[in-house]
């Protein structure tokens, strides 16, 4: 589904990604872990097509299409979703109005009929229920005055409504207490499907107790230095990123 090969990217003059390879198939959950400044969020932004991030080498393919040829909204229409680390506030714009506009823009781009207000409301209620989001949140302006937990839950709700093929979760666990973390993780798990893949970007192993990944990758200094099964996350927890660096340095030397 997603093929990232030898990806190099920079912001202004700083090269942040220095040759990332990542392959994600439908139905899989991949965790990308790494310390601050390793390039995790850059990877998420590059996948979503943020303009400030310049791809200098390598390739990005989504279902065989070159992502670099696609505008951010086209990537969204193709089924790529990014749950933002810092969801943006849009004052005065109702949350459900926003979601309806988003869903119908996507449906239109796919040549499908736009949902009318009644059908949309039914869908919205059902999905809000699925990911355990309070209906009061739907009536408030997009993310305005939301607590950290509400913002993250709102991202999961948007994902539930838009039904992407590939969801990238950028530090969705940051700033959440354990209860909020569990709710968010339960929401994600409710959306796991055979034809849907997840890339879960996180600093801490904690989230992966609740969203169990099929593959774990360690991103360090703009490169994936180790990949493994879910056990790798536990190893990280024990030895820290420094331990992993030594191990990988040793590995490449031997």
């Amino acid at each position, binding site marked *: 589904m997603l093929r990232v090969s030898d990806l190099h990217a920079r912001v202004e003059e700083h090269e942040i990604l220095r040759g990332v390879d990542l392959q994600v198939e439908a139905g899989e959950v991949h965790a990308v872990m790494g310390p601050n400044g390793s390039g995790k969020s850059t990877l998420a932004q590059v996948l*979503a*097509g943020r303009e400030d991030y310049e791809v200098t080498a390598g390739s990005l393919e989504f279902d065989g299409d070159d992502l670099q040829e696609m505008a951010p909204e086209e990537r*969204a229409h193709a089924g790529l979703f990014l749950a933002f680390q810092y969801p943006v506030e849009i004052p*005065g*714009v109702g949350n459900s109005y926003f979601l309806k506009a988003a869903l119908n*823009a*996507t449906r239109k781009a796919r040549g499908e009929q736009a949902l009318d207000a009644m059908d949309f409301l039914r869908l919205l209620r059902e999905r809000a229920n699925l990911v355990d989001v309070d209906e009061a949140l739907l009536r408030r302006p997009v993310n305005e005055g939301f607590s950290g937990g509400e913002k993250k839950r709102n991202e999961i709700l948007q994902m539930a409504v838009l039904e992407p093929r590939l969801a990238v979760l950028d530090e969705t666990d940051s700033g959440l207490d354990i209860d909020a973390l569990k709710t968010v993780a339960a929401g994600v798990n409710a959306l796991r499907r055979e034809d849907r893949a997840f890339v879960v970007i996180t600093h801490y192993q904690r989230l992966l107790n609740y969203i169990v990944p099929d593959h774990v990758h360690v991103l360090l200094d703009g490169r994936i230095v180790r990949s493994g099964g879910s056990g790798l996350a536990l190893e990280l927890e024990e030895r820290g990123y420094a331990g992993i660096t030594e191990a990988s340095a040793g590995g490449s030397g031997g």
Partner: protein
Amino acid sequence: MATATDTIEALAQRDYEYGFVTDVEQDTAPPGLSEEIIAFISAKKNEPQWLLDWRLHAYRGWLKMVEPQWANVRYEPIDYQSICYYAAPKSDDDRPRSLDEIDPEILATYEKLGIPLREQEVLAGVAVDAVFDSVSVATTFREKLAELGVIFCSFSEAVQDHPELVRKYLGTVVPRRDNFFAALNSAVFSDGSFVYIPKGVRCPMELSTYFRINAMNTGQFERTLIIADEGSHVSYLEGCTAPMRDENQLHAAVVELVAHEDAQIKYSTVQNWYPGDKQGVGGIYNFVTKRGLCAGRRSKISWTQVETGSAVTWKYPSCILKGDDSVGEFYSVAVSNNRQQADTGTKMIHIGKRTSSTIVSKGISAGEGQNTYRGSVRILRSAEDARNFSQCDSMLIGDRCGAHTFPYIDVANPSAQMEHEASTSKIGEDQVFYCNQRGIETEDAVSMIVNGFCKEVFRELPMEFAVEAQKLLEVSLEGSVG
């Protein structure tokens, strides 16, 4: 909107009945301003002597006044002697024969706003071939109002038919020599609207200039007077979202509102006059004096405006809160795109006890537009327990535009409660990207963000006006984000 054609229908019928026959031979005054010209205008309109004297007093005052320089706007000096101050409504022969003769850019805007073809013709001033057999909506409308004792007519008609009311109220809210442009208007005003709502009457429909027979060609010096007698309510709509074709560059209107005890006046404006081209050439100068007097106890005046047009706007709809417990409100959205300049805001003058005022101003600047909020809240010594809430928000789109805020607060009574909030935000790339990532294209995203920003004002507009205003904002800001 659908009734605009009916208005024309009514116009056409009126032409048929009376024609444009007047007792003065010329139809147009030569350019320039003098006492003779004013006498000519007054004679053309068959005005009583007192009104001519009233005009001349204004004119003599104007001669000694200087054009205000304090506004944060720049424009070429106006040559007042080159302006033509009276022109009879155009005959069909002088008007465009069809829409083919109209500037394609204006037509494109009509298309975007979804205006039906017939209304486009009316707005563009096309000579409509008027053969109608139905009774016009406008006439029925007037009859219905007349049953309730509501007077809604052109200012000129009011001078003829209700001289006692005109004489009693004219200039009581905006004195003849109030300011340079008001004095000019008082000297040469062409026409406008007159509304009187009798005691205890709630006007059953929104009064719109659309419905007023003779609404077209009111010219550049419009004069409006609205009186709400005790306990009456009225909602008045001015302007329309479609850009009006107009050959006069300078517009200096005066609007006076009087609300007696327990009366309420809601005055909503959508202004979309030609803003000039992208270099700012040829746009309208809109220098307007609008003021309401809350004369009686518990009276209320609300101004709501959506200003997207004109090259230069100078406009401060104000409330004088004289009656105890009276309420003044000002809700405004002002957009300046390309080279547009707007210096707009309000004045709330608290005189009566427990008077309260609310100001919500949303300024949007795009392109090289400059948007200034200028507001004044004055609490006089007599105004025990007065309250004011002001909120002034500015939004910048792009990095070549400007937003400026000049709030003046003057409190002479220590019991006053004042709240002032202000913010400036840049329409964020991160907001647009967030929308993009959810599948929403950039233009739609900008329009959504801007509409959200203006929501507190739009919800004060009458329903169908609000929908039109949103659409208008979209068209006005088209292409402002890359």
